[in-house]
């Protein structure tokens, strides 16, 4: 009879002991396992993959140097650890984790082969219906679940389950020599994707890119859809994330200490219900919480690592440390970043009412490339497409358009915020509703 494999806590304890024997006084063990399904249609035909992944990672340190070791499968307690090098690595102290209910949808079964092929083929059908002659070059659907356990010599005993699905689509219009367009969406479950909306989004982008006219320089009221607004918010991350963010944000404060419009409230929440990264702890085992970064235009704090938060706290009052680091996989070191970073929506404001309020301006709905944010020069620009708007009506398509202006104007120019909050995977889930902005310009 084969002896039963040790459970995560026994296994982690034996690994922590072996590290201690190597004079690595502080250490942490992460154990992760998961399974995923992937369905792709594209140039390589139809590919259905099913993976079972299992891996582990160790961070350990002494007073002078440190190491990170990871591997597939389960760690062996008799592993020979490499010589640590570099500097000593601070590892987080244990913190009390607030009560947590595991979301029920984590237990739902992963997508089946027929379900995923059906969804991608449905998107292709709808795309062709919306735009005859258009082609889906690539459709990639992935869904996975995982279980993570973190143990450390400082007493961290954390574990969580998670689930995520992504949809990557690339399509081309019926016109020869035109370039493709691409969208990437993420949800907790494949079943939450809306094939009709995805197909319409692709068709709209292709049509706008092809038919839209390029305006000369213009200013006016600008209605910015969630897909564009999330890129603007992501572009502002140097003001929101990292220990140098508060200093960077200082230059945008006005005399009253406001960094932006009264309607600008930006939050990061690792426990956002239904969110792709919803979890009780982060990639270091520290508790996640809602963190308000900007509140009604007033800068409150940046998203920082626990070391910086603890250093700041030592100068004022004791504080609860918040976990803001995620690991892309067990192979990766935890890195500071947003979980669900979003601009707070106004639940009583519809997009239609904002569109109807525009006398003359633009409705910019899709980004068509990467933008540039230059904080030293206080300028940004982002390529987008959308519509001209007159008297609340879309009048003509716009393409090859750049939104541009000063970063300060973007922060202060928000006149209204709608309720249609939506998230996109941009190195963390970044979310925004539609916003109405003045003070920015567009150019061709």
């Amino acid at each position, binding site marked *: 009879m084969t002896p039963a494999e040790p459970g995560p806590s026994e296994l982690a304890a034996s690994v922590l002991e072996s590290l201690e024997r190597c004079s690595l006084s502080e250490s942490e063990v992460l154990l992760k396992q998961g399974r995923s399904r992937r369905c792709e249609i594209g*140039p390589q035909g139809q590919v259905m993959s099913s993976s079972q992944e299992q891996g582990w990672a160790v961070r350990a340190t002494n007073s002078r140097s440190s190491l990170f070791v990871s591997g597939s499968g389960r760690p062996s307690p008799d592993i020979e650890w*490499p*010589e640590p090098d570099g500097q000593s*690595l601070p590892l987080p102290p244990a913190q009390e984790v607030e009560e947590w209910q595991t979301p029920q949808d984590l237990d739902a079964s992963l997508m089946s082969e027929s379900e995923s092929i059906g969804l991608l083929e449905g998107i292709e059908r709808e795309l062709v219906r919306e735009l005859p002659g258009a082609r889906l070059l690539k459709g990639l659907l992935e869904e996975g679940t995982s279980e993570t356990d973190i143990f450390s010599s400082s007493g961290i005993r954390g574990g969580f389950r998670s689930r995520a699905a992504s949809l990557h689509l690339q399509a081309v219009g019926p016109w020869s020599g035109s370039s493709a367009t691409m969208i990437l969406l993420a949800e907790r479950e494949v079943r939450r994707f809306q094939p009709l909306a995805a197909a319409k989004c692709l068709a709209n982008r292709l049509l706008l890119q092809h038919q839209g006219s390029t305006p000369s320089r213009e200013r006016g009221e600008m209605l910015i859809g969630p897909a564009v607004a999330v890129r603007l918010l992501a572009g502002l991350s140097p003001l929101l994330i990292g220990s140098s963010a508060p200093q960077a944000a200082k230059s945008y404060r006005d005399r009253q200490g406001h960094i932006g419009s009264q309607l600008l409230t930006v939050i990061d929440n690792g426990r956002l219900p239904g969110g792709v990264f919803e979890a009780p702890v982060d990639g270091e085992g520290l508790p996640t919480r809602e963190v308000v970064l900007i509140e009604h235009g007033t800068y409150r704090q940046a998203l920082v690592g626990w070391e910086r938060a603890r250093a700041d706290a030592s100068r004022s009052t004791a504080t609860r440390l918040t976990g803001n680091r995620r690991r892309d996989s067990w192979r990766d070191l935890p890195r500071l970043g947003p979980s669900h970073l979003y601009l707070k929506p106004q639940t009583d404001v519809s997009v239609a009412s904002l569109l109807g309020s525009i006398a003359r301006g633009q409705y910019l709905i899709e980004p068509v490339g990467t933008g540039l944010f230059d904080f030293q020069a206080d300028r940004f620009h982002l390529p987008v497409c959308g519509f001209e708007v007159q008297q609340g009506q879309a009048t003509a398509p716009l393409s090859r358009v750049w939104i541009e202006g000063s970063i300060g104007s973007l922060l202060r120019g928000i006149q209204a915020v709608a309720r249609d909050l939506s998230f996109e995977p941009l190195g963390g889930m970044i979310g925004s509703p539609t916003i109405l902005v003045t003070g920015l310009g567009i150019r061709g």
Partner: protein
Amino acid sequence: MTESQKVPFSELDTTAIARSLSQIADREGDLADVFFERREEIVLAPADRAPGVICCQDEGFAVRLAREGKSWLATRDEIESGLLGAALKQVARVVPATSYPAPLLKVDRPDPPIVSAEQLDFPRRVTRAIRQRLAAFPLQLTVRSHRRWLRVVRTQLSPDPEHERFFSCEADLPWARWGTLLTRLDESAADRVARNLTALFRAREAQPVISGRQNVVLGPAACAVLLHELVAHALETDTLVLGGRADAALGAELGGDLLNVIDDPSGAPEGVKRTTDDEGTMVVRRWLLRRGVVEQPLADLFAAHSSTSLVAGAGRRGHRHEAPVPRSLHLELLCGQSSLSELLADVDEGLYLPEASRGRLDPLTGDFSLFAPHGRIVRQGALGDLVGPSRLVGKVADLLRSIRGVGNEAEMSGAGWCAKGGVKLPVWATTPAVALDSVEVEA
């Protein structure tokens, strides 16, 4: 042979695995294979960073069944008989009760990760080589060692295991980031890194490039990136099918007589040369372009299965959890007649770009861009002042036709990390310099 010298996967019972595969590949034209993989990455961070050393060892396998344009893949992160049996069932899509015999798998445990002396010493060698160039600047150097062992077992074929070892080096400078791939960490590699970093340092406040059409000479390292983006990517079957049938490209004229481009994994430098590809197919010395005409695109088994004109042998996998894709491994541009000074001598007014940091090709429009971090002005055939970053842009066909001279001295370089379609792969090239007539340059 000691335990530590054993080649992983050399003792696999390939006959038993092939027998199991033949049970799932039960239709005419089916392809079934198992891809075994072990990877090791050891990262030595700059001295002031933590963690100072990063080691990742992982292994596993992927079972694949390809049938009539569809593929099923089942992957695992451990190499164990029961898991292989379950994966075989999964790709065969049979009810779990069906019993396939699970082949016994004997795989030695990986050796403990060890930071080699050459890896430890390399940052010091680079610093020394920079000083020898009479330069000094703040530098954070991260040196990575990459190793991969793999073995492919197919129903009727089981080539020997393959092993790859190479290094990558990333430099953080106060004004730029720079990276390269290396096959060795010796004095000449340190000197090459130092030469590039010093050039970046000296170009940090150089005058900007004047935008417009210019004659340009690309050094071997820049030419490597250009060929990878404009020739290799353009001639991968997964790119070609975007415009219709992949074999329709055969015989197309892409450039002039001087353009003889070959992909030859067996001619790659020691450490990364290959006998078989990641699908177990023998690699070939593949003429992508002969005198500017497409002769044989880069094809994997999937593409070769659909056309008798396409030859497999260029299948590569970024990771076992990903399906194979057709990619170049080691490109060669055959040398021409002119020395670098002769190529420059024909330029009255133009640019010399010794290296390119990255490139991009839109396969649907044929638009490309190639980024150069720095360069030199060329006047009356002589190298002049340093210039800052520039970008070559235009249509692939126009650029390839603009090649008016090819150098007579080829250099081996890592063309860099290719990330097409999200699949990250190291790519290599042995190329001389090329001279381009009147190409669009942007500052």
